C-alpha cells in the first residue's frame, strides 16, 4: 500500500516539502542543542520541564483518543465508525511518534536513552510510560495496517488481529493514566498531587483528540474524494461535547477544592496562572484565552443548532483544541513548577531554538499523519471504485 503515498497531487507534494523544511530547521536546532546542552532552552533548576514535556503530555492525550472511534465500533458495534477507525488509529501513530520524539529531545543525554531498557526500573513511572507508549505504537501499526490492507483486498482482516484490537482499547486508557502518574505521584508539588489528575487527563484527551480528528476529517473531505461521512462527524462532535463538559467540570472541582479550603499551597498555582504572582504573569493572558475558548467551545457544541451546523461545529472543535492545548501543556507543566519548592517564583519562557525544535517535531508528526492519511484515503477511494 506504500505506493499510494508516492502518488499525489501538487498540493500533497508541496505540503510534504513544506513539512520537510520545518523538520530540517528543527533538526538543525536540535543538533545545536545536542552540542551546547539544554542551556539553549528557557528551562532552569526551578522550571526543569518546559515546552517539550508540555507537548508530550498533550500529545499522549491525542494518541489515546484514537480509542474514541475504535471503542464504539468494536465494542458497541456502531457500524458507522467502521469508515473512520483507521483515521483514529493512524492519528494515534503520528501522535505517539511525536510523544517519543518530545521525550527524546528533552533528555540531557539523548544517546543514553537505551539505559532505560538496560537497567529497567519498575518503580519509575518513566519505565512504564516507555512500555505503554511503545506497546501502543506497535498495536496501532499492526491493527491499522492489517485492517486497511484487508479492506483493500475486500476480505476480513486476519483473526489474530481481533484480540489486538480489544487489547488496544484498555491500552489507550493506560497510556494517559500512566502519563498522569508521572505528575500526580510527586510529593511537594501540590498542583499535581491530586487524585483527579488521571481522570482530567482522560477527559481532556477525549475532547481534544476527536476535535483534532474532526478538523482533519474536514480537510480529508476537502482534499480527497473520500468522505468520512456526515453521521460519523456528528457522532464525533457529540463525543467531543461530552468529554469537554467533563473536562471543564473536573477543572472546576480543582478550583473548588483549592479555594474553598483556602489552603495556600493549593491556591497559589491557580493564582500564578490566572492572575500572576509577585509580578510574574506571562502565562496570565494565555490561561484566560484558554478559559474563553473553553466557554466558546461549550456554547457552540452544547447548543444543538450550532453543533449540527458544520461551520460552527468546526469553530467549536478548534476552540476545544486551543483551550486544552494551553491548559494541559504550558499551564499544567509550568503551573506545577511555579512557585517552586521554596515558594519562590522563577519565570520560564521558551527560547527561539526551543520553539523551532518543537515545531520540527510537530512537522514530523504531521508528515507521518499526511502520508498515512494519504494511504488510507487512496485505499478508500480505490475500494469505492473511483
Amino acid at each position: 500500500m506504500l505506493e499510494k503515498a508516492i502518488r499525489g497531487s501538487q498540493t500533497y507534494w508541496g505540503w510534504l516539502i513544506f513539512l520537510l523544511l520545518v523538520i530540517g530547521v528543527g533538526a538543525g536546532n536540535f543538533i545545536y542543542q545536542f552540542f551546547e546542552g539544554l542551556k539553549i532552552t528557557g528551562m532552569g533548576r526551578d522550571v526543569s520541564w518546559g515546552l517539550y514535556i508540555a507537548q508530550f503530555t498533550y500529545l499522549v492525550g491525542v494518541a489515546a483518543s484514537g480509542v474514541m472511534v475504535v471503542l464504539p465500533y468494536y465494542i458497541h458495534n456502531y457500524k458507522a465508525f467502521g469508515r473512520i477507525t483507521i483515521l483514529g488509529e493512524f492519528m494515534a501513530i503520528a501522535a505517539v511518534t511525536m510523544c517519543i520524539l518530545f521525550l527524546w529531545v528533552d533528555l540531557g543525554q539523548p544517546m543514553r536513552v537505551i539505559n532505560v531498557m538496560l537497567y529497567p526500573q519498575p518503580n519509575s513511572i518513566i519505565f512504564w510510560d516507555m512500555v505503554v507508549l511503545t506497546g501502543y505504537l506497535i498495536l496501532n501499526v499492526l491493527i491499522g495496517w492489517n485492517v486497511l490492507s484487508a479492506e483493500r483486498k475486500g476480505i476480513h482482516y486476519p483473526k489474530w488481529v481481533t484480540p489486538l484490537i480489544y487489547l488496544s482499547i484498555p491500552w489507550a486508557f493506560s497510556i494517559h493514566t500512566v502519563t498522569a502518574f508521572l505528575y500526580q505521584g510527586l510529593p511537594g508539588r501540590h498542583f499535581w498531587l491530586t487524585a483527579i489528575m488521571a481522570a482530567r487527563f482522560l477527559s481532556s484527551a477525549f475532547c481534544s483528540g476527536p476535535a483534532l480528528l474532526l478538523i482533519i476529517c474536514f480537510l480529508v473531505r476537502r482534499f480527497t474524494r473520500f468522505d468520512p461521512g456526515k453521521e460519523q462527524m456528528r457522532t464525533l462532535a457529540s463525543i467531543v461535547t461530552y468529554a469537554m463538559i467533563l473536562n471543564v467540570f473536573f477543572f472546576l472541582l480543582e478550583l473548588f477544592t483549592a479555594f474553598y479550603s483556602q489552603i495556600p499551597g493549593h491556591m497559589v498555582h491557580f493564582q500564578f496562572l490566572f492572575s500572576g504572582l509577585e509580578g510574574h504573569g506571562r502565562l496570565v493572558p494565555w490561561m484566560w484565552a484558554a478559559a474563553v475558548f473553553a466557554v466558546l467551545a461549550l456554547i457552540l457544541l452544547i447548543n444543538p443548532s450550532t453543533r449540527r451546523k458544520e461551520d460552527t461545529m468546526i469553530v467549536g472543535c478548534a476552540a476545544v483544541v486551543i483551550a486544552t492545548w494551553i491548559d494541559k501543556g504550558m499551564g499544567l507543566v509550568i503551573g506545577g513548577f511555579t512557585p517552586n519548592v521554596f515558594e519562590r517564583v522563577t519565570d520560564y519562557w521558551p527560547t527561539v531554538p526551543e520553539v523551532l525544535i518543537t515545531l520540527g517535531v510537530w512537522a514530523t508528526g504531521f508528515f507521518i499523519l499526511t502520508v498515512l492519511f494519504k494511504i488510507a484515503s487512496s485505499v478508500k477511494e480505490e475500494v469505492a471504485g473511483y
Partner: protein
Amino acid sequence: MGMDRREFLRIAGYSALLGLGGKAAFELLAPGQIDAAVESVPLTVGKKWGMAVDMTKMDEQIMDKVIEVCHRIHNVPKVANPKQEIKWIWKETYEHTFPGQHHEYAAEKYHGRNFLLLCNHCTNPPCCRVCPTAATWKREEDGVVMMDQHRCIGCRFCMAACPFGARSFNYGDPRKAPADLNPNFPPDMTYPTRVRGVVEKCNLCAERLAKGQIPACVEEANKIKEGALTFGDLADPESQVRTVLREHYSIQRKPELGTGPNVYYII
C-alpha cells in the same frame, strides 16, 4: 586503581557467568591488582549518616566558607545564567527554607535569616523512586543518596520529585563554564568533572567517607566554630549527632511529606 563498587560488582558478575571465583577472576582480568581493588571499594562505618545544623552557632562567614570549599573540591562550576546554576550546598532564607512553617510573629532574629541547605539524604527518597535508570540510588549500607553521572540520561524526573530543590542539572557543559567566573577549572584534579546533560547534587562526601573522613562542610565549619555542623551515625544512640539532637530542639524541612530528611536544624 580507580575501581568503584559498581564496577567491582559488574566484573564479579561477569566472572560468575564465566564460572570463575572472585579472586581467580581478578587474577585473570587484572593480575596483581586484587588487593588494591578491594581497598578502594568505598567502605563506610555508619549505618545511617545524618547531620545537625546548629543555627545558634551558624553564621554567614561559616556558610560562605563551607559553600566555597564544597564547590571547589567537587568541581562545581559557576554558570552565567542564575536560573541554571549548580549548587550542592547553599543558603536560603528562613521563610523559604521552611515554607508554611514560618509566621509573622516568629522570633525576630530569624526574619530573613539565611539557613544552610543541602541534600537531605532522605530515608525514603522520592528522587530514587522516580529514576528510570537507578542512576540515583539510596546506598543501603549507610543511607547516602548516591548519583551515577555515567548512567544518568538527564530526564530531570528526580528534580521534579525532590521537594527540597537539592538537585542541579548541567544545562551546559561544566568544563566549558565561563573562565572569568571559574579561573583554573577544574579546581580539584582528584575529583571528576561532569558532562553536560546530567543531574548532580551533594554526595555527603562519599569519597571522603570511603577514606574514613567526615564531610568537608562539617570539617570546615568546625574549624571556624565548634559544633556549627555535627555529622554522625543516626543509628548509633551514642553518636555525636544523636547527642546534640537529644539535647536541643530541632526541626526538619517538610517532614509532613514522609521522605524522612536526615538533616536537622537546631534553632
